[in-house]
């Protein structure tokens, strides 16, 4: 949920940049089949950014349960752990991340499911 909110502001910027040259056929041919000029599928391709693991790129080794600010980025507003397919975190890091989030929940640094308090 939170992840979608984060990505939306970036997506329009991407379509603005790539939108104008598309009718002249300036796009690489690999996106040609399926998505015609201005077609809905051609637009959707731009939404899909290559997601990279935050922990790998920023070289964060320690995923600590005390670091609730970091963990909070991977917890949806409802309190659920954001799945890998949305956050782009790699498998080894997601494993450690989910463990840290569960420890943080245990000590009331992070909420369990849907927060009862606003």
């Amino acid at each position, binding site marked *: 949920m939170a992840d979608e909110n984060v990505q939306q502001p970036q997506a329009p910027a991407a379509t603005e940049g790539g939108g104008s040259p598309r009718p002249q056929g300036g796009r690489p041919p690999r996106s040609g089949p399926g998505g015609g000029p201005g077609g809905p599928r051609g637009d959707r391709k731009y939404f899909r950014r290559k997601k990279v693991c935050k922990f790998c790129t920023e070289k964060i080794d320690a995923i600590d349960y005390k670091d609730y600010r970091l963990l909070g980025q991977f917890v949806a507003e409802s309190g659920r752990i954001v799945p890998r397919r949305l956050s782009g975190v790699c498998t080894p890091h997601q494993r450690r991340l989910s463990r840290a989030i569960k420890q943080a929940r245990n000590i009331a640094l*992070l909420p369990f499911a849907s*927060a009862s*308090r606003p």
Partner: protein
Amino acid sequence: MQRTYELMFILRPDMTDEDVDKVVATVDHQITSAGGTVKSVDKMGKRRLAYLVRNFADGLYILVTIEGPGSAISEVERRLRVTEPVIKFITVRVDEEQKRLTKVKAIRDSRRRGQGTHAQAAAAEAAQTAEPAAEAPAQA
């Protein structure tokens, strides 16, 4: 078997500083009498809890780093459970993770050192090329 643990516990928010110190001192004493040693005590201060615990919305977080056997931990946890001002606690074993971290760091450092020698070699080369240039005006 000596292991490193982190014990984090939450005290009720309406405690005075002296009471907090007293509780920390007793926990400290319990750890040492159970065969462990206290490495550090960190009072992290008052923080809003993510959910209500015993009808408290805030809590005083305290982090204690312990070195000792697992039996000491179970004893300390048993005592914390019956300590009234402690509303929540968690013990996490950290030595395995620290070992892994130092390993990762060592690998990364050795890689960086590899790059460093390259940089030094480049710097030395640059100095050699600069030297003749500096000598040339002196001869002329």
